[in-house]
């Protein structure tokens, strides 16, 4: 047993850290530190910087632009990226549909789509959830009927993150209405410019527009946009969701938030002294630090195992990462709110696009607290994670 990194891994960390330090545009870094949303232009700019360095899709196979890093190197990369902070690459392309395409799609699809994902020529969004299909994803109803060389798609997707920017959507659609739930589902790639698609924003409690409803009304999709085999889409979806759980702990990000929390608590006065000097606050801080340290170690254990057992199989312990990772992220937003106190109340009338340097850091604290209730809901709610543990680990 050994916690330390090898000299090569340490050198790698230095290299990655220096790259992030020197290459993340200052405006983007500031937005992330203050929990503001980045724009589409920000994401494109940053992805191109990563792509130029050859680090846009490090976990992909080498032939499609991957780096062949070890699990530990990948972990270091993610940690440093979050800690800088730098924006994580848009997950819908890089982590979700990309791996599905290089694993299950045909050669023509690989050749066409993968390079466009890697440099963010195409902005992808995810068409899985439906109004009636949340945690029970396999109950989805959006249907695709084969007519000649086309599918005709009708239905509705929801919670579609950043669909307003999207060029493409990957969808789970029902192609065999007679088949049992999980069977009869296919994985279809749909151009967002297609006739019959309507995107309607869902405004979340923080006032932000991250998610949307996407309506499909007799949308014609070329049959060649099917990934893999018809009615095998559930297998590809399971593969995709398994990948989604890795790196969900967000330890690096929480460390960055913790640093910021300490900074803010150190500069905010209460009762004639910084809040940071209040013993009760300090103990709350120490308590979340202990949780975060434990999570970091648990994540390292999962990563070290992954390196040994080969990739592809999600470790059931990754459910621990999701549960604790989301709880810690939420606790940190709660403590931020506590530090802001009565000054958390004024609403940020300038919105996300505000670039006013004098804007107080405090404006985003309450919205972030509200917004972060999502982290224990998305990616398989924490209750679903407990189901996974009780079935896959405990055999209940």
């Amino acid at each position: 047993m050994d916690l330390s990194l090898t000299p090569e891994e340490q050198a790698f960390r230095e290299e990655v850290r220096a790259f992030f330090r020197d290459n993340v545009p200052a405006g983007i870094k500031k937005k992330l530190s203050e929990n503001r949303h980045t724009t589409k232009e920000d994401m494109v700019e940053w992805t191109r910087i990563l792509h130029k360095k050859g680090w846009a899709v490090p976990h992909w196979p080498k032939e499609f632009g991957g780096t062949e890093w070890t699990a530990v190197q990948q972990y270091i990369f993610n940690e440093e990226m979050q800690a800088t902070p730098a924006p994580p690459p848009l997950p819908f392309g890089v982590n979700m549909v990309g791996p599905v395409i290089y694993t299950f799609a045909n050669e023509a699809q690989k050749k066409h789509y993968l390079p466009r994902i890697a440099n963010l020529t195409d902005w992808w969004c995810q068409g899985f959830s439906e109004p009636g299909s949340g945690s029970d994803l396999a109950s989805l109803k959006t249907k695709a009927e084969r007519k000649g060389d086309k599918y005709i798609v009708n239905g509705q997707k929801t919670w579609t993150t950043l669909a307003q920017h999207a060029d493409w959507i990957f969808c789970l659609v029902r192609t065999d209405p007679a088949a049992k739930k999980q069977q009869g589902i296919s994985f279809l790639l749909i151009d967002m410019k297609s006739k019959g698609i309507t995107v309607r924003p869902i405004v979340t409690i923080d006032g932000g527009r991250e998610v949307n409803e996407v309506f499909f009304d007799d949308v014609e999709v070329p049959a060649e946009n099917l990934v893999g085999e018809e009615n095998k889409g559930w297998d590809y979806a399971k593969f995709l969701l398994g990948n989604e759980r890795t790196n969900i702990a967000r330890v690096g990000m929480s460390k960055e938030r913790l640093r910021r929390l300490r900074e803010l608590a150190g500069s905010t006065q209460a009762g004639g002294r910084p809040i940071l000097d209040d013993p009760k606050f300090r103990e709350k801080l120490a308590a979340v630090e202990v949780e975060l340290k434990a999570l970091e170690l648990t994540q390292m254990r999962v990563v070290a195992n992954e390196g040994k057992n080969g990739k592809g199989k999600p470790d059931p312990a990754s459910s621990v990462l999701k549960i604790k990772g989301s709880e810690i992220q939420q606790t940190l937003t709660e403590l931020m709110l506590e530090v802001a106190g009565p000054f958390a109340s004024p609403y940020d009338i300038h919105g996300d696009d505000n670039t006013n340097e004098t804007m107080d850091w405090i404006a985003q604290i309450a919205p972030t607290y509200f917004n972060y209730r999502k982290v224990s809901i998305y990616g398989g709610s924490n209750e679903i994670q407990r189901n996974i543990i009780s079935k896959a680990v405990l055999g209940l």
Partner: protein
Amino acid sequence: MDFDLSEEQRLLKDSVDGLLNDSYDFEQRKKYGAEKIGWSKAVWGKLAEQGLLGLPFAEADGGFGAGAVETMIVMQAFGRALVLEPYLPTVVIAGGFLRHGGSAAQKAAHIPGIIDGSKTFAFAQLEKNSRYDLSDVSTTAKKKGDGWVIDGEKFVVLNGEAADTLVVTARTKGGQTERDGIGVFLVPRTAKGVTVKGYPTQDGMRAADITFTGVEVGADAALGDPANGLPLIERVVDEARTALCAEAVGAMDESLKITVEYIKTRKQFGVPIGSFQALQHRAADMFVFTEQARSMAMLATMASDFNDAKERAASVAAAKVQVGKSSKFVGQQSIQLHGGIGMTMEASIGHYFKRLSIIESTFGDTDYHLRRASEAGGII
């Protein structure tokens, strides 16, 4: 970054597990606990035979030169079986004092007896008012000729009745809570002026309150610097805390296993109660708490190699916080999921709960270590 055991460490684990499988089921444990000293000399002999009592000692002293990971392996296995034998006070604590602070003569006098199983030790540290503060010592050691005279009272001394030698913390100078002036002394339990009042503990072991009245010992009784022994005490107690964290993880592992087994078999309303989601989610939370505790027990174990003493202490404090919280949750919920049967002395689960509860308040509880971690300026 590597969390696997080495080949030798795996062999060690197999051998401890094997020994306990053969000779330490719940019924056997009851018999050992019923012996007058509260544990089994026969089992202790087996531990010696397998070399477990000599693990951490240097090869030059007759040991195996093993490290903190080996102690973790042993303590986890002991936690799973709720072992009663005095490994912690003898090998971990007294052994730690001898290894880190003992003179060549002291090592030669005491280590062979530990390794061959002929001698056990006890750590007489806790006082009426000291609670978890290691620097709060009112027992005194006064110089007399070349030797020392010890006066004071110590409480809840684990293995205090059976131990051959007591490791006693005593003040050689200064006020009750001063960091300076604390010494560590090796005192034969049968020395004149030592009064031992033994009793059973809540978790099935035996401890004693011990009074020292004008106890005279020689110059060779002082271990390390009698004027400045606190850093040594802190180091050894941190090792004891680390060992307790590992023991707790073993006890949590077994509690979860027993509980899951129980809810799979216990039927109500015509189905196993483990088919109810309320219980499944509780069990899943027990798993999460156990894994987080395991991670921190590993951190504390590996921290023994950290160069920075402050970082080492903060890591152990953080581990004790997590293990304390996890112990409480896993212990309490084990009883809850068992229902009425969990309340009975007859079922093993309650004994795990009791041991976990006592570990939480040994050498500093969760609040104490949270304060310690906080005062260290954070651990991230």
